[in-house]
């Protein structure tokens, strides 16, 4: 089984990270699509545990979360599903969710249960490092990487703090805003990545708003990885056999590989 760190060991490797909401559009769909994402070239899959009030998410993931909850998805079901997926895929699996479901499940128990089934990391967008000491200590004890986020508004001090505390990689939010497909990204993204690079040698993966191979290729020239979510979810919604999801992911893979060799 691959750990998150191993993904970034290969020189100049560009990681492709996919986000999906567990249980959207159905539980079966999640089970089917994850191995296909891996086959098509994803290096890490983020499994979104749905929350009723996803305030860092735009319309697409809000809708997916709502639908998943309607489908009866709970953190426990997500853990069961991750355990099944672990038997089928070797890449790192990362949970992404909001703090309240983790808090209510029990921080200690959540980390323990996640680690036991072979989940490798956790991302909690409403838990900045200022509030994260408890989850940090417990997740690290269990060998889970707690991945923190940086944003275009982050100050130099905060970049240093997040760089020091984030494990696995640093999740760099590309825009001031919520998740969701956008036509154009922040113009000074290169500069933003460079600012973070000056403070750390940890891998930097960029997410929020990335929906085309052009955007992915452009980001991969400067960053270590690209995170794509809403566009994948929109494509999943449209069909049963995930043909267009797979071809989209393959395109992203090619764009990243080209950026690596250039």
């Amino acid at each position, binding site marked *: 089984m691959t750990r998150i760190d191993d993904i970034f060991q290969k020189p100049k490797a560009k990681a492709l990270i996919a986000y999906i909401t567990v249980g959207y559009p159905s539980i079966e769909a999640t089970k089917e699509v994850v191995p296909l994402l891996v086959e098509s070239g994803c290096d890490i899959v983020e499994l979104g545990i749905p*929350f*009723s*009030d*996803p*305030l*860092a998410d*735009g319309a697409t993931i*809000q809708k997916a979360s*709502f639908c998943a*909850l309607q489908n009866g998805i*709970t*953190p*426990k079901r997500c853990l069961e599903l991750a355990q099944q997926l672990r038997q089928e895929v070797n890449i790192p699996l990362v949970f992404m969710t*909001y*703090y*309240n*479901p*983790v*808090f*209510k*499940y029990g921080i200690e128990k959540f980390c323990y249960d996640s680690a036991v089934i072979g989940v490798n990391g956790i991302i909690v*967008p*409403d*838990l*900045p490092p*200022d*509030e994260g000491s408890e989850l940090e200590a417990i997740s690290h004890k269990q060998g889970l990487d707690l991945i*923190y*986020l*940086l*944003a*275009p*508004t*982050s*100050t130099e001090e*905060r970049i240093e703090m*997040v760089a020091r505390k984030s494990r696995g990689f640093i999740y760099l*939010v590309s*825009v*001031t*805003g*919520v998740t969701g497909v956008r036509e154009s990204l922040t113009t000074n993204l290169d500069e933003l990545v460079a600012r973070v690079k000056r403070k750390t040698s940890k891998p930097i993966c960029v997410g929020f708003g990335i929906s085309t191979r052009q955007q992915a290729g452009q980001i991969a020239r400067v960053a270590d990885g690209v995170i794509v979510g809403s566009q994948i979810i929109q494509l999943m919604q449209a069909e049963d056999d995930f043909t267009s999801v797979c071809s989209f992911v393959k395109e992203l893979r090619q764009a990243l590989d080209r950026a690596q060799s250039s």
Partner: protein
Amino acid sequence: MQPDKKGYFGEYGGRFVPETLIPVLDELEATYREVKNDAVFWGEFESLSRDYSGRPTPLYAAEGMTRHCGGARILLKREDLAHTGAHKINNALGQGLLARKMGKRRIIAETGAGQHGVATAAVCAKLGLTCIVYMGEEDVRRQALNVFRMKLMGAEVRTVCGGSRTLKDAINEAIRDWVTNAQDSHYLLGSVVGPSPYPRMVRDFQSVIGKETRKQIKDKTGRLPDYIVACVGGGSNAIGIFYPFLKNEEVKLIGVEAAGKGLKSGMHAATLVAGSAGILHGTKSYLLQDKEGQIKQTHSISAGLDYPGVGPEHSFLKDSGRVKYVAVDDGQALEGFKLLCRTEGIMPAMETAHAIYYVIELAGSLNKNEIVDINLSGGGDKDIDIVAEAMEAGK
């Protein structure tokens, strides 16, 4: 009490928000610290509170209601007489001045009953700021009068159709706007909820209610009241009147939440009475949530109380036992509303009517020497349609 450095009241509070907002909160906190002892800032706040908002609001001896209840003497702190018809103007004015000081010309607000939206729209009109108000679809329907008021004052009202289509979802959407426009927009949050420094800052702006009450009651009766009763949704009017009395242990403080269709029905908004600790909208506090940590749908006849969270300082005050929290249901609140109309010729907001009903029961059990002070947090003009609907249904 003052929260600790990280904005915690005991174990409640904090800043559970996306990274994007942390530097924005730092800036807000720094500006607030800067003005804390700035005589010019508070001078302008006080002068506008007087000439624009109409402060101090009266402390009124409700003799008709007192006679009806047949016990303790009842006094009403008349926040309904403040400009725009509720206590909400105090906080809107304070934060409006703060936003102007920070150079933020675009104001985002959420509203449930519409009172905070109207207060914010008024302050923005006065200070020349752009105003966007998020309001749940259900609340837009049941508080149509306030929607019209906001529009007249130049605010853009954005209807929120997600989730329960009430206050909780309006806050989600306001936060999403804020994350997107953090650099040029100030989120003028309307209650003592949200990430630090909001709970403390909003309390400070609202504590003018308690400070005035303290002086007025001493002038009138020569002593402090035995009870202070206020309704609690997010909890800003309650903390505003409670705060200056916290150290006077002899003054009993009671917060009244919405029991909706009854606590057993599950259709209520009694967060402190029936909830448990969790994290929502940037703060750790009591919440109404299921066993998986998903936020529950709430219900109350009053839009302003229809919220699954509550301010972290209230959570602290509940656990410490300093404030007692109770719940009053829709039907009882309607009784309270009608009683104040009949005995005093005052129409309270349906939110406040919850506190009125509680006092009807309480005052009757006390003797004539005791004094009960109710924070009459807002007027009921906005609720006429809901009241008519409920009275029709109750026939």
